[in-house]
């Protein structure tokens, strides 16, 4: 042996064995060859990226021990065997995915030298391994977890005791006051009532108080005057609108897919309405999360209080609010990117973790391994995009029960029939039967909606869809067995595409499509996926529908078949065959079997009358975007994030830091419900309540206790008040995860009620960023709140809740493919949350005021200050229009003096009365404008134009779009 193994302590035994057999000893000639010819090539072309400075792909090339252990991809060489050596493969430039060096191929002589060196057994002098990082290191989740506060269990400590509990009565105030006292600071005095009511109105419902509401509060001398205001706001239906919009930022909410043609995401707005209802109903946050992760899997879903439809499933729509392109030339990459976006939003929103950082390598700073990433990816890979059908009033549910009862009665009168032998196919490698539906149940198939029932048709069942009494053809997946009016979907297990043709023997009307690698855009644009999305229209006759077209380009990909009956027709599938050539398929035959003359026609006519009466009660279902389970599939680790080089299998599970390394086992389904239950168990996932209370704090105080609200990892910012954070998180859990009561607790604190002016200048010097909260923060309103406030002033606000979105108003600057019809300038007066969010045509006013571009989770908006904001408030036709409207509104009130009208404007806009100086300036302004327009001075009490000018100015004064 020419290497001192005691120095190379980390080298695995495997290579020691290998090296002793394959590598040559310390032949001086071999070493000279290495030193003179090999090492210079390595030094020039490899060390820069794989040396002491950088260890790309976890690899170093400056010592043989590193080379033999290898990096992320495994050992670099097999001494003595160039053909089996990864490095020789890489420098040969024959492997598309691995070409080294990346800047250009080595010349032929250099390639030959390195090949020869490996063939010689890779001689290397006996020298100590150089110092510095070794490249690949075992990722120690447990160690990293113990090194960072955010992973620790909740610690519910007592609030600090106060000597003077006059101000710090509540727990929140005691935590805040303790830190202020430690810094020898005083809290600011309480805000005056006008300031406070404007603040709490915008924070809780996103709208300003009316002058009447302001005056009532100002003059309410009862000790609980403020509590009454808060409770009223928490009960307001507008509360849900305000808090839903916050949540939508995290869900990258949009109603189109973006990219070239900006295709629509159907029914996305129903998810928005779900959010508004959920926040208004104060759905406990653990339930809310459960519904988001696995609302489709709940055996007892939450139901809409009046309409009784399944609310829980609507939450799962968020998974699919990502962008999507049509016709990806690499559909597998498209899927990987989509899942990455889902994981990113999942991690940041629910866990405050940047999980997506672990896509290509173990997280550099947090206890998240690449295996964790792909363990989570498996949940998404095992799930499918779905259009769920809801049942308002549970009428479909009731009808199905009745139809089942009738069917049982009718079936009892039917004699069992033999399976009419499905024509045996010549099974060979050219032709395989994928499914014949001859079983007692659907096996690994998935049904949703009521239409396809829970099993294929069986012998001894009545065929209700023919006139004369007849038995049903057995062995069909039939959406009309109970009633043609029922709708539903049938999906196959996931399979690998092995043949260029898929033949489906079927009858009736409906749709079939092949979903390859989760790609669902083909119905918008068939490019590259031609022939894989078809209508079936073959009433009463079993015949073949063939998916071929572009299928031959997708051999080896994974896919599933989806059959949809979304009309009052039936769809029956008899058999599915994969073939190379389309030959040897059975002939067409009638769907229905011939009538059985022995049956009592009268009796069956009565059955028919009864089922048809039930049919008439079946309404159209309500459609929503949702997730549904597919075949359980574990993902593989993608080395360096590329699906083209897969590593080990990564069994589905929650993060190792929370649950260890054992995977959940669910072969039939995704297993999301297990994940969801672990996520909402604070003893397993303490981050869940911490992240949410911090989000709420952020929205009420302007900055979170952890300022980086989507990142609780090491690269986020540490909590300013860690004890308070954990206290609130514990209280949140104990108080049934009630968001409303958490908000109430916060806004009733004296901390929240402080003025924004410091008690003394000293505080600004000691705590210039106000991290200790020595005063309330001054905050700019969000674009939505500014626009809604403008509509409130002008009286144009239409405060209806819910419904399809209002099309965005298009300016000349909003052009591009997929341009829709423009919506009204004033958005029909609806609140901003109801403006349609088209990814390629985002509302300019919202964008200018920092509404996030919906591409991934963005819990914390930036607060920019750009001239586009000023230009909008100065010159945008919407703002000018609303100013005119406001002026007319205020002039329409009879019998008011000019001063009284000015007071009306100020109370409406700023919740206060103008000062004498402001009144004087406004009157001077009105007079000057009148003179400028050559109008008589007497017109001051009725000239709409000059009053509109004044209203316009009031929209632009900074007090309008700041709260303090």
């Amino acid at each position, binding site marked *: 042996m020419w290497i001192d193994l005691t120095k190379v302590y980390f080298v695995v035994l495997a290579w020691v064995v290998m090296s002793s057999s394959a590598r040559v000893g310390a032949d001086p000639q071999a070493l000279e060859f290495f030193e003179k010819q090999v090492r210079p090539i390595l030094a020039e072309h490899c060390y820069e990226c794989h040396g002491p400075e950088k260890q790309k792909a976890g690899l170093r090339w400056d010592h043989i021990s590193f080379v033999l252990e290898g990096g992320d991809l495994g050992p670099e060489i097999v001494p003595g065997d160039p053909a089996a050596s990864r490095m020789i493969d890489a420098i040969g430039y024959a492997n598309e995915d691995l070409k080294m060096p990346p800047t*250009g191929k080595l010349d032929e002589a250099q390639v030959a030298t390195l090949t020869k060196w490996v063939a010689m057994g890779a001689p290397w002098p006996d020298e100590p391994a150089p110092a510095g990082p070794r490249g690949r290191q075992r990722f120690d989740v447990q160690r990293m977890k113990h090194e960072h506060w955010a992973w620790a269990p909740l610690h519910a400590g007592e609030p600090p005791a106060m000597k003077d509990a006059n101000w710090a009565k509540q727990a929140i105030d005691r935590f805040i006051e303790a830190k202020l006292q430690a810094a020898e600071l005083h809290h600011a005095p309480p805000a005056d009532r006008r300031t406070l009511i404007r603040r709490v109105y915008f924070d809780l419902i996103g709208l300003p108080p009316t002058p009447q509401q302001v005056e009532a509060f100002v003059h309410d001398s009862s000790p609980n005057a403020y509590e009454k205001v808060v409770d009223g706001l928490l009960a307001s239906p507008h509360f849900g609108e305000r808090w839903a919009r916050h949540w939508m930022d995290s869900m990258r909410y949009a109603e189109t897919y*973006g990219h*070239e043609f900006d295709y629509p995401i159907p029914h996305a707005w129903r998810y928005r309405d779900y959010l508004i209802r959920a926040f208004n109903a104060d759905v406990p946050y653990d339930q809310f999360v459960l519904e988001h992760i696995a609302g489709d899997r709940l055996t007892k879903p939450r139901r809409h209080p009046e309409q009784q439809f399944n609310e829980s499933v609507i939450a799962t729509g968020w998974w699919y609010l990502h*962008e999507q*392109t049509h*016709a990806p*030339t690499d559909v597998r990459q498209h899927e990987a*990117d989509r899942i990455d*976006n889902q994981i990113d939003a999942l991690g*940041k929103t629910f866990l405050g973790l*940047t999980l*997506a950082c672990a896509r*290509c390598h173990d997280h*550099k*700073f947090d206890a998240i391994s690449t295996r964790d990433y792909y363990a989570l990816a498996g949940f998404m890979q095992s799930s499918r995009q779905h259009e769920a059908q809801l049942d308002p009033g549970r009428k479909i549910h009731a009808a199905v029960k009745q139809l089942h009862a009738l069917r049982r009665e009718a079936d009892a009168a039917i004699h069992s029939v033999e399976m009419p032998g499905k024509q045996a196919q010549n099974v060979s490698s050219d032709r395989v039967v994928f499914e014949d539906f001859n079983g007692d149940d659907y096996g690994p198939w998935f049904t949703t909606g009521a239409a396809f029932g829970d099993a294929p048709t069986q012998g001894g069942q009545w065929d209700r869809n023919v006139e004369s009494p007849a038995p049903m053809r057995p062995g069909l997946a039939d959406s009309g067995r109970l009633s043609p009016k029922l709708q539903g979907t049938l999906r196959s297990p996931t399979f690998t595409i092995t043949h260029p043709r898929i033949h489906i023997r079927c009858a009736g009307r409906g749709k079939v499509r092949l979903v390859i690698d989760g790609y669902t855009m083909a119905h918008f644009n068939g490019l*590259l996926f031609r022939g894989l999305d078809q209508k079936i229209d073959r009433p009463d006759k079993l015949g073949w529908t063939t998916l071929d077209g572009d299928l031959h380009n997708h051999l080896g990909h994974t896919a599933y078949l989806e059959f949809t009956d979304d009309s009052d027709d039936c769809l029956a599938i008899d058999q599915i065959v994969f073939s190379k050539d389309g030959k040897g398929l059975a002939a067409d035959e009638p769907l229905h079997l011939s009538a059985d003359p022995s049956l009592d026609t009268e009796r069956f006519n009565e059955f028919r009358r009864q089922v048809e009466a039930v049919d008439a009660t079946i309404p159209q279902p309500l459609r929503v975007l949702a997730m549904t389970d597919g075949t359980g599939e574990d993902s593989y680790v993608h080395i360096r994030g590329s699906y083209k080089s897969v590593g080990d299998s990564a069994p589905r599970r929650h993060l190792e830091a929370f649950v260890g390394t054992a995977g959940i086992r669910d072969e039939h389904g995704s297993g999301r419900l297990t994940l969801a239950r672990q996520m909402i168990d604070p003893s397993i996932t303490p981050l869940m309540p911490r992240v949410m209370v911090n989000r709420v704090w952020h929205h009420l105080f302007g900055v979170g206790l952890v300022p*980086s609200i989507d*990142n609780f990892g*090491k690269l*986020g910012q540490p909590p300013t008040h860690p004890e308070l954070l954990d206290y609130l998180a514990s209280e949140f859990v104990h108080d049934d995860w009630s968001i409303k009561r958490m908000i109430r607790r916060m806004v009733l604190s004296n901390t929240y009620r402080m003025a*924004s*002016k*410091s008690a003394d200048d000293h505080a600004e010097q000691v705590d210039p960023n106000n991290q200790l909260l020595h005063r309330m923060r*001054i905050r*700019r309103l969000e674009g939505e709140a500014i626009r809604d406030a403008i509509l409130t002033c002008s009286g144009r606000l239409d405060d209806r809740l819910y419904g399809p979105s209002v099309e965005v108003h298009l*300016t000349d600057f*909003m*052009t*591009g493919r997929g341009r829709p019809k423009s919506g009204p300038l004033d958005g029909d007066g609806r609140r901003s949350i109801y403006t349609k969010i088209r*990814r*390629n045509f985002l509302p300019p006013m919202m964008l200018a005021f920092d509404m996030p*571009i919906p*591409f*991934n989770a963005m819990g914390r908006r*930036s*607060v*920019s*200050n*750009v*001239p*586009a*904001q*000023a*230009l*909008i408030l*100065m*010159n*945008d*036709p919407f703002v000018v229009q609303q100013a005119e409207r406001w002026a007319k509104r205020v002039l329409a009130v009879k019998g008011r003096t000019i001063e009284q009208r000015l007071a009306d404007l100020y109370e409406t806009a700023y919740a206060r009365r103008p000062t004498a100086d*402001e009144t004087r300036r406004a009157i001077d*302004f009105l007079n000057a*404008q009148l003179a*400028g327009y050559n109008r008589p001075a007497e017109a001051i009490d009725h000239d709409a134009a000059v009053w509109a*000018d004044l209203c*316009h100015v009031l929209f*632009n004064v*900074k*007090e309008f779009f*700041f709260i*303090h």
Partner: protein
Amino acid sequence: MSHHCGRFQPAPMTRRQMLRQCGAGFGSVALAAMLGHEAFASTGRTPFAPSRPHFTPRARNVIFLYMDGGPSQVDTFDPKPTLKKYDGKPFPVKAEPTQFDNNGNTLASPWKFHRYGQSGTPVSDLFPHVGRCIDDIAVIRSMTSDFSEHTNANYFLHTGVGLQGRPSMGAWVGYGLGSECRNLPSFVVLNGGLIPPGGLDNFNSGFLPATYQGSIFKAGAMPVANIKPTEPSAAAQQRKLALMHDLDAGVADQFGRVDAIESAIANYELAFRMQMAVPNLMDLSDESKPTQRLYGLESSNKPTQIFGRQCLIARRLVERGVRFIELTCPSVGHDRWDQHGNLKDGHEKNAVAVDQPIAGLLRDLKQRGLLDETLIVWSGEFGRTPFAQGKNGRDHNPFGYSMWLAGGGVRGGVVHGATDDLGYKAVEHVRTIHDLHATILHLLGIDHEKLTVRFGGLDQRLTTIDHEAHVIHDVIA
């Protein structure tokens, strides 16, 4: 804590710092530099706005001539005589998957190539005017993209990532260098008519503050949204602004801490200056006839006039200190440079629209001494296949295509890299979009690994964290 890549910087700035800096900014309007001179000069660099370059810049401004749709390399700057041999015959090597999967036979270029200038670099008959400027141009024949789809490729070219939501390179430049102009944005998109697939998000600021997003200037007298006052007279608006100013002063007193309010007030002043500056910018009456002629403003071809005007405005923006100017193509009554069919007709129309204006811009900048400090970048989002799509079109080809650089710090008259004999894949000095971005930043004096912003827990950069990027020194003088 071990920093593997050494790219991590201290926590992001506070909101107050940000408000302060952006307060001086222009709506896509970066004035970080203005502040930089005043504020940062004393305090040193902050992670938010490195107001000083990392090393001596070769260029101060960039004009990006974005050839929407993907011009064909073998028909413009990369002659391939071998294609003649296979013309009309099956393409001799295996083709990668294409966007339309309708691959036809090999299609030789219908245009002749001529050698121009002292360098003798060949240019096709599509670009006779640009050809005569070739000694100022460095052609890169080995550019590659990761995407065959327009949208992904556009996002990739503009932002370094093939998905929506990242900052555009113009935004990065504004973020890195700030602006030298007090009245105009640091990143202006002169929209010739076509908005590329992927929409306005190609020009967005992503996770950078909105301050840095591209401002779209349309062709025509009123190029910027909401730039025109709605009042019947300037005096009427000024009285309104005066009242606003007075009332704002009271607000600042009332609110206590006033920095946020003061920034918002300053922001209005900038908006007002912009309102004044834009009409002046767009008024070309002070340009001489010969200058207008040079740019093709007297052309009988309408698209040439439109693009010529945009090129001339680009020069005026450079003179005003705007950092990054992107030009999008005019509509030519045919598709963008995206000839899936009718290659000859479509490429000719697109070329005629831009050839003379681009040459005019190069010459005009040169004669005014501005070319040395202005980097010109000409590129599509990918090239086109050397085999036909259908009979007479070409499909998208990201595997090897041509683009060029000129001006500020660029070595003129060189050709860098090569595609294979068929003009299909880059084989020599294979270059990526990340290399292009690194090179552009380098010429501006920015080290692409040091221009970072914290987002999603990482110090993000234009060249991305997980990809290699190498400055293309061969094209630098």
